[in-house]
């Protein structure tokens, strides 16, 4: 554990598009962040998958850097944040919401592979740093923000919540 009481700030802020693709062969979904001037909409084959464009949102990515010790946390494995409205006791996120109560807001850090077939998700270090960062910004200790990885959801594709995304801006 680091002896530094980190003071996080955003760094490496990049604007682009969050592109969501689906495989019409197996139904898998995947997301990636693109800094191309126009969101890529190509269909292509990758191993067993036949990816096609499903949606694109204007988005930003950022990393966190500690102003005290200079440590940087890479958040490249996170493609978005979702305010959870889940209260399903069968879901770990829902149980956490019930446990923390109304003063806590739970945000699910979404990784690129919602099926988690690869076994990867947003890193533990990233989730901890995000939680510290957003709580450091709060004006009142009466509120709390908790960031959790999407692998905690019982089914992230069915998870109840509001994704922070600029929906509709690229649909013309």
């Amino acid at each position: 554990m680091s002896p530094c009481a980190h003071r996080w700030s955003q760094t490496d802020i990049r604007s682009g598009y969050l592109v969501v693709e689906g495989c019409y062969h197996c139904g898998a979904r995947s997301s990636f962040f693109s800094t191309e001037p126009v969101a890529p909409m190509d269909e292509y084959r990758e191993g067993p998958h036949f990816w096609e464009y499903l949606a694109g949102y204007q988005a930003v990515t950022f990393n966190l850097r500690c102003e005290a010790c200079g440590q940087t946390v890479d958040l490249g494995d996170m493609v978005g944040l979702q305010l959870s409205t889940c209260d399903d006791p069968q879901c770990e996120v829902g149980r956490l919401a019930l446990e923390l109560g109304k003063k806590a807001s739970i945000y699910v850090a979404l990784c690129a592979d919602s099926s988690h077939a690869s076994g990867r998700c947003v890193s533990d270090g990233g989730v901890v740093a995000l939680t510290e960062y957003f709580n450091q910004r709060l004006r009142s200790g009466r509120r709390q923000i908790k960031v959790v990885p999407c692998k905690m959801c019982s089914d992230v594709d069915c998870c109840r919540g509001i994704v922070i995304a600029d929906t509709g801006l690229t649909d013309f």
Partner: protein
Amino acid sequence: MRISEVVERTGLESLNAWEDADVSGVYISDMVSDIITGAESGCVLVTLQTHKSLIAAANLVDAALVVVTHGKRPGDDVVQLADKAGIALFSSPVDTWRYAVQLFELGMR
């Protein structure tokens, strides 16, 4: 400055229950991806956006209040989400530029 002063002096219509609190700074944006990287806690968040995503972003950055301009009104589901998150939500009849001028004339920077 307090929320109550901003409400009274800029003619805001309240859309949900709110508690008075300090306000510092202003952020104007219609993009939630921009809000989460640019807005500071305690700010007046001025926007045309009325999607639920707005509340998710305003809650994350701890905005003191959200002002939807040009007389636009969010749907009931958005207001209910703001209530749940404790976000003070208001509507202004003027457009974003005129509302920004009002805030500037109040001394807000």
